[in-house]
Each structure stands twice: as C-alpha cells, then as structure tokens.
C-alpha cells in the first residue's frame, strides 16, 4: 500500500513513484497543514491558536498562511502564557468550539499541565459524562539539534498516564493528516506529538477527508522472529534495523504504535504470540515510559509465548546534553536496536 510506505524526502519518493503513478506525495508538515485547512473549511467551529501561528514561518510551515485564508480571528496568535491559553482553548472547546492549540515544542506543555490534567482531561467523567472538551493540542519533539535539556524532551508518558486524555504520535505523512483529522473530530482532548525530523518525510497523502482511527497501531513490516514496537521517528530506525537484521537471518516485525493512549495492546500481543520476542523503541525515557507499557502489555497478554525477556530501547536516564559528542551518545538508533536484537536472538 503506498500510504504505508514513507520516504525521507521528496527525491526518494519520486524515485519510488517515477511516473507519479497517480500517487500524490506530500511532506509530513504539508500533510498537517492540509488537514488543518480542510478541517477549517468544513467546520466553522475549528480554529487554530498558539504562539506564532500567524507568523511567516507558521510553526515550521504547519500553520502557514492560515491567517490569510481564514483571518486572524481563526488563526489566533497568543501571548506567552501556556497555562492560561490552554485553559482558554479548553473553555472554548467546552462551549462547543474545536480548537487546535499548537506548541512549537513539547517542553512548553509542562506549564499547562494544570489545565490539561486537572481540567480538560477530567471534564467528561467528573461531570457525569455531561460535558466534553474536544480540544486538540499539537506539540513538537525533536532530537540531535543541540537544543539540549529544555528543548529536546519527549514527554508523552506524562500525558499518557492520565485517564481522559488521548495521545497520538504519527510517524508518516498519511497518519499525520489522518490522525489530526481524527483528533479534531474526537470529543476528547487529544494530544498530537509530532517529530521535527519527520517534517520533510514525504509519502502518499490522499486529497480530501479521511481519518486514521485513534487507538490503532499498524504493522509496517512483517516478520516471524522478533517484534519491534516503535513510535514516531523511531519507527524509521526500527525499519533500518530490521533491514540489516534480515541480512543476518533475523526477520523482524515492525509495529508503528501510532497511538500511545489508548494503546493498541491487541496488535502487540498478537505479534508477540507469533514471534515470542519483543523490543520496544521509544523516543522518551525508560522508567515509567511508553516502553514499560508496551512490555507490560506483552507480559500480560502473551506471557506463555515469550522466549526471551523483552528489551526496552529508550533514552538514558539523564536530561539531554547540548554537546554534539554527548548527544551522539545520548540518542539510540538502528545500531542499538540491531545489537539488542542480535543479543536476544543468539542467546536463545
């Protein structure tokens, strides 16, 4: 399927589809913008707000031109006041609007955790299912950009711990559009964590409306020996590792989690029942992280099938360093995945 494949840039995409073959390629950032434009055209309740959403850059191109197209009333630049702004967005959502709040970096979300955790996430249950907050919050993560400890975090597990929130991390342009659409249509607060390194990735993105269901993972590569459950940018590192391991006689199944909460534990356990081995690959930290949840789901759902102890690949227990030398050490990738899997398979 063309939309299950993705390419690191437009050149790669065009090499794969030389005649264009009726397959439209769109970069991840443009897929986000296209979804936003379509949503705003379809539904007058949808609006975008955040710091700099109407500036020339437009949140790395993802909100570019919205203010010209829809007016500054629906593409609203905000003050540096994350908690207040998040509460304002939540209040508007509570009253029937469908705001998309964009943060340049996920690191700014901690300032708004009161409104996310104490308010937006609780509204539905706390009020007996008689209120809802259809709020979408976009936040961007990255790696290897020398931005260090306060600008490089990957905070999905904090958010995924909270009942009432949904958290998605699209890895492909197709999913970036489909999950953003699904988030805005959803009646709950949904947090979308986008990876800056994916912004140039190009893949097939159909024109017009479609959604990718929240809560469904997808198999990106089938294999019988090891299950790799990865998310966001790490899906690509996992795919590269799987390719290399194939040459060494190990067939990996690569699952792209897509949604972190609610996690598609069914697909993970189904795969582990087949392979008996599990490696989780996260962009975040290890303790109480997404990997812990992935492993727990396999232990609970496929205990008898496990042939080896599952392994978590994640960031070391330290804030992100600025130095390139330290950064190189800090981020895991293909090499670490290959090493872990070889060790796991050969040990049996």
């Amino acid at each position, binding site marked *: 399927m063309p939309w299950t494949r993705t390419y690191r840039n437009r050149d790669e995409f065009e090499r794969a589809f030389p005649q264009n073959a009726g397959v439209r390629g769109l970069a991840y950032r443009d897929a986000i913008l296209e979804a936003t434009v379509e949503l705003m055209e379809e539904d007058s309740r949808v609006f975008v707000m955040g710091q700099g959403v109407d500036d020339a850059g437009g949140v790395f191109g993802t909100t570019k031109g919205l203010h010209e197209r829809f007016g500054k009333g629906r593409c609203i630049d905000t003050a540096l*006041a994350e908690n*207040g*702004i998040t*509460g*304002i*967005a939540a209040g508007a959502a509570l009253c*029937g609007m469908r705001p998309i709040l964009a943060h340049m970096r996920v690191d700014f979300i901690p300032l708004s955790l*009161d409104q996310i955790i104490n*308010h937006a996430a609780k509204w539905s249950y706390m*009020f007996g299912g008689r209120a809802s907050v259809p709020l979408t919050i976009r936040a961007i993560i990255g790696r290897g950009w020398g931005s260090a400890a306060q600008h490089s975090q990957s905070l999905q597990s904090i958010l995924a711990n909270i009942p009432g929130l949904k958290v998605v991390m699209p890895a492909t342009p197709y999913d970036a559009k489909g999950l953003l659409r699904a988030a805005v249509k959803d009646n709950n607060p949904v947090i979308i964590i986008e990876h800056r390194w994916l912004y140039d990735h190009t893949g097939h993105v159909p024109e017009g409306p479609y959604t990718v269901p929240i809560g469904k993972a997808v198999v990106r590569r089938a294999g019988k020996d090891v299950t790799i459950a990865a998310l966001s940018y790490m899906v690509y590192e996992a795919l590269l590792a799987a390719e290399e391991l194939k040459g060494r006689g190990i067939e990996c199944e690569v699952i792209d989690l897509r949604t972190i909460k609610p996690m598609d534990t069914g697909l993970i356990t189904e795969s582990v029942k087949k392979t008996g081995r599990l490696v989780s690959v996260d962009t975040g930290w290890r303790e109480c992280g997404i990997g812990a949840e992935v492993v727990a789901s396999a232990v609970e759902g496929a205990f008898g099938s496990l042939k080896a102890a599952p392994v978590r690949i994640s960031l070391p227990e330290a804030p992100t360093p600025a130095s390139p030398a330290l950064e190189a050490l800090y981020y895991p990738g293909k090499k670490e995945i290959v090493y872990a899997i070889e060790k796991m398979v050969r040990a049996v």
Partner: protein
Amino acid sequence: MRQKIKPVEAALAAAGALNVVEMYKKALTIRYFEEKVDWLFGRGKLGGTTHLCIGQEAVPVGVASALRADDYMVSTHRGHGHLIAKGGEPARIFAELLGKSEGYCKGRGGTQHLCVMGLNFLGTNGITGGGIPIATGAGLSIKLSGDDRVAVCFFGEGASNQGTFHESLNMASVWKLPVVYVCENNMYAMSTRFARISASDDVAARAGAYGIEAAIVDGMDALKVAELAGKVVGRVRAGGGPALIEAKTYRFCGHSKSDPRTYRTREEEEMWKGKDPIKRLAAAAAEFIPGSEIEGIKRGVLAMIEDAYDAAEKGSDSSTDAALDGVYAKREDIVPQGNIQSA
C-alpha cells in the same frame, strides 16, 4: 478608586425593576441551603469537604440578576450559591453532594465539580484560579460565534495571585472578550489575609494593568451589586470588552468544614455580621411587601430546602455498573444550550 456608597433609597430606586423580592428569595435559598449543608457535615451525613458561602450571598444573587439564561457562568470551590443563583435546583445539588445518581454529575463530581451544561453553568472548581481561563475561553467561543452572550467568571481574591488570572485578563483585554470577572473578595484565602500576601490592596487595581475597567462594590448589598452588574454586563454584552467587579464581602463561616478561625477576631466577624446581606434584602423587600409575607417567604424557602434534601436522600447511590462510563466522551451533542452548530 473605591466607589462612593450611595444611600439605600437611591440604589432601591435604581433597582426598581429588579424584583427585590425574587432576589431575597434566591439569597435566602442559598443561605438555608448552606446552613443545611453545614448541619449535615456536623452530623457526619456528608463526607469529603465543603466550602460554604454564608455571608456572601449578595454577590451571586446580585450578579445573576443581570444575566440571561444563555449566559455562561464559571464558579469556584465556593460555588453552591453561584449554581443556585444560575437556576440550579437544590435537590439535585444535594443529590450530588450525597453521591447520588440524581446529582447533576451523577455523584461523580461532588461539591467542587458541579457542572450543569443545560444551565450554561461551566463548573465549580477544585483548583484555585483554574476556572478563570475556562471562562475566558467561553468568552472566546461567544466572540467566535458572534452572538451577544456574556461569560461571568467568579473567583476569590486569593485566586487573583494565580498566573491564570493575569494570563486570562491580558488575553481577554487584547481580544475584547465578553467576560465579566467577578472577584468575591472575602479578605481571606483559607487563613491568609489578602493584605499579607498581595502587593495591591484591591484586586480591582490589577485590572488596570490590563486595560480592563474595574469597579468596587459593597458585596454585602445585593441591590448595589445588581445595579453595578446591570451596567457592567450591559456594556460587556454590547461589545465593550471585558470588565471586572470586585465585591467586598465576608464569609461568616470558616473556610471549609473544620476551621477554628484563629486568624481573625470575633469582633471583626461581628462587625461584618452586622452587614448581613439577607437582613438587608429583607429590609429592602419590606418596602414592597408586608412583614407577614416576609415571614411566609422564610417559612416557604426553609420548607423547600428540607423537602429538597429529603428527596435527594431518597435517591439512589451513584450506579456502580456505570462507574467507568464517561471517562471519554462519545457523543457530539454535549454542548451547552444555545450553542452554535457545525457549519
């Protein structure tokens, strides 16, 4: 800054159309409701915590008199009075406090999480200052949908030290949102006197920094509050941008259920009790109706509160079958009345 206190007669005349008797009944309903809650706590019939607004009734009653049913209201932890003023039924509030299915939130929320979308009442709130941006967002939704409703945001003077207060006022002013911020300044946040922890004497002064018009009113006098609220709400409704009302008031009771009130003197309490808003309203109502009728109203409201409690107590405990329902909203139609529809 402080508004000159006009003679009661002048205020009365200004409030002529405001139906003083109705305001008296509302205030009395709040007072008797809160006294019943206090009584229930004292006898262990209610658990958790509660924050009563005895002494402060003039503020919600006065402000609500200026509102339409389709206006939004955002409340605080001290919110029973706000909800009653907005039209909440005592029986259903009791039911919520008692953890009954018939409660406004099916017993899930309790005193600090009472939300009634059908009344455009967007919730009491357990997080001090947490509701201020929510009300501001309600104001944004009104502005975006282009109608002429307003959002009223209650908060205590303690909450005016929260970032959410400053962040919200700033944005509301820049965006000219139809929000009326109403500070119930009862001088104490738990045991902490405002003057001890605040760089400004009045909360109203803070609004000036954001270019928001603010007025101070005697929060023990429902008619004065109503008069001011009428003007302010009218201006905000007409597109004049946000406004702030600071009502100087006093809670006669402790902060929450167990509070020995060692941080204030009994003399101070007696001085404020001399300004009891219920007594003032009764005196004002007596200008229109005979004393015997006032007594009749008292008996009637008291009986109504007792009946409401009895009805609530007979209700069914929150259903445990559906204990996990609603963590995630499913339906699209959970929006307040009068809301705009999808294009």
